[in-house]
C-alpha cells in the first residue's frame, strides 16, 4: 500500500505544485519541491502562461516575491539564493521602468534588461529536462536485477572504493588518532595543587558547586582521591564552606562572600 508514493518522490510535470489563493489573507500553499530559484521562476512563468522570451517582469516579480513571503510565513527556510533572485528580478523590473534614452532608440543597441535572465533560464531548462531523462533511465534500470550472491563474492570484499573514500577514511583515522592522544594526556594524573586550583576557580565562578557533580567529573580513582583531598584542603584554608540542605542531602561548596576569610 505504501509503495506508490515511494515510486514518485516528485513529479516533474508539477501538477500538484500550485499556490492556491484562499479566502482573504488566508493563502493556502500546496508546496511543490522547487530545486532552486530558476526552477520556481520557470514554474511561475508557465503558470502565468507567459512567453519566456517576453517575460511580463512586473507580474512575475510580484508572484515570485509573494511566493517567498508565503514560504517565510510558513516558516520554511528560504535559501539565500532565492532572495538573490528576488533582488535580481526587482532590479530588472526597475530598469524596465526607466525611460529609454532617445539616443539609443535604434533596436540593435538596446539591450533588453531581461536578456541575461532569459539566457540563464533557457540553459537551466535544458539541464532540468536532462535530469528528467536521468530520472526515467533509473526508473527503467530498477526493473533489471543482477545475480544473487555466490561463494566467490566473499573472497572479494566489500568496499568499492573511490578517491573520496580514501580521503574520508584517512580523515577518520586522523580523528581517531587525535582522540587517542587526548585520552593519553587526560590519563596523566593531575597534581593536588592543580586540583585545588581547578576547584577554587569553579567555586568562585559558579558561586556554589555540588560536590557530587565535581566528583563525577573525575576520570579515575586516583583523581577522585585527589579531588576529595582538595575539597578537604580548600574548606580548611579558604573562605569556602560546606553546606548540606538536609541530612544525607546534597553537599554544596559555597564561597563565603561577606568574607571574614583569612
Amino acid at each position: 500500500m505504501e509503495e506508490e508514493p515511494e515510486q514518485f518522490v516528485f513529479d516533474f510535470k508539477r501538477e500538484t505544485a500550485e499556490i492556491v489563493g484562499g479566502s482573504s489573507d488566508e493563502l493556502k500553499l500546496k508546496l511543490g519541491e522547487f530545486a532552486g530559484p530558476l526552477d520556481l521562476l520557470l514554474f511561475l512563468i508557465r503558470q502565468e502562461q507567459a512567453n519566456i522570451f517576453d517575460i511580463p517582469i512586473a507580474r512575475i516579480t510580484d508572484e515570485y516575491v509573494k511566493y517567498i513571503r508565503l514560504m517565510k510565513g510558513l516558516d520554511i527556510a528560504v535559501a539565500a539564493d532565492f532572495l538573490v533572485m528576488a533582488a535580481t528580478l526587482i532590479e530588472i523590473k526597475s530598469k524596465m521602468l526607466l525611460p529609454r534614452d532617445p539616443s539609443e532608440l535604434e533596436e540593435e543597441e538596446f539591450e533588453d534588461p531581461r536578456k541575461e535572465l532569459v539566457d540563464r533560464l533557457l540553459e537551466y531548462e535544458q539541464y532540468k529536462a536532462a535530469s528528467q531523462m536521468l530520472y526515467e533511465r533509473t526508473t527503467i534500470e530498477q526493473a533489471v536485477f543482477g545475480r544473487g550472491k555466490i561463494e566467490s563474492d566473499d573472497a572479494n570484499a566489500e568496499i568499492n572504493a573511490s578517491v573520496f573514500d580514501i580521503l574520508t577514511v584517512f580523515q577518520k583515522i586522523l580523528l581517531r588518532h587525535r582522540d587517542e592522544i587526548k585520552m593519553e594526556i587526560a590519563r596523566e594524573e593531575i597534581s593536588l595543587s592543580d586540583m585545588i586550583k581547578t576547584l577554587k576557580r569553579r567555586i568562585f565562578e559558579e558561586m556554589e558547586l555540588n560536590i557530587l557533580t565535581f566528583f563525577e567529573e573525575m576520570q579515575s580513582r586516583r583523581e577522585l582521591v585527589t579531588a576529595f583531598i582538595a575539597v578537604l584542603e580548600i574548606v580548611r584554608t579558604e573562605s569556602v564552606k560546606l553546606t548540606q540542605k538536609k541530612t544525607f542531602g546534597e553537599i554544596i561548596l559555597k564561597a563565603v562572600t561577606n568574607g571574614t576569610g583569612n
Partner: protein
Amino acid sequence: MEPEIEKQSARSMAELVAIVEALIFVADEPITTKLLAEVIEEERDSVEAAVVELQKEYETRESGLQIREIAGGWQIATRTELHEDVRKFLKTRPSAKLSLASLETLAVIAYKQPVTVPEILEIRGVQSASAIKTLLEKRLIVTKGHKETVGRPMQYGTSKEFLIQFGLKDLTELPSIEDFEDLAG
C-alpha cells in the same frame, strides 16, 4: 621466438562462449572484453565474437536473463519484463530516488564534466553542496582533480557506478544537451 605466435586458440567457438559466460557470471561487476581476453589468453576479437554469440543465444531461447553491455563491460541480468515477479521474490521496493536537487546537479555534472562547484552554481542558480555530498556518498560522481584556476577548485565527473545505475554503455550514449532545447518555452 615470439610467444605471441603460439597464441593460437585451442578452443572451439562453443568452448569460448561457455568460458566467457562463466566469467561474466562470476564477475561481480561488468567485465570488459579486454579483461576477458587477458584471463583466458585469447584474441580480443574472438572474445568479442563469443560474447555477441552468447547474447544472441540468450535472446533466441527467450531466457529469463540477458547479456548486457554496460559501463564498458558485460553483465548478466534479469529481463525487464520479469521485474514484478523478481521484486516480489526479493521483497524489494524500488529504491529511494534522488531528490530533485541531486538529479539536477547530477545532470549538470554528467554534461559539463569536469565541472567545479561554482560552475554548477552558475547553471543551477542555487548552492549544490549537499547534493554533491550525496552524489559522492552514493558513488555516482568522483573527483577529477583540481582546476588550474584561482583557488584551484575541485572538479567533478560521473563514475562507473553512474553508468551502471543509469544503464549506460558509456557517456556517449547520453543524448546531447542540445536535444533538450525544444522543450524550452
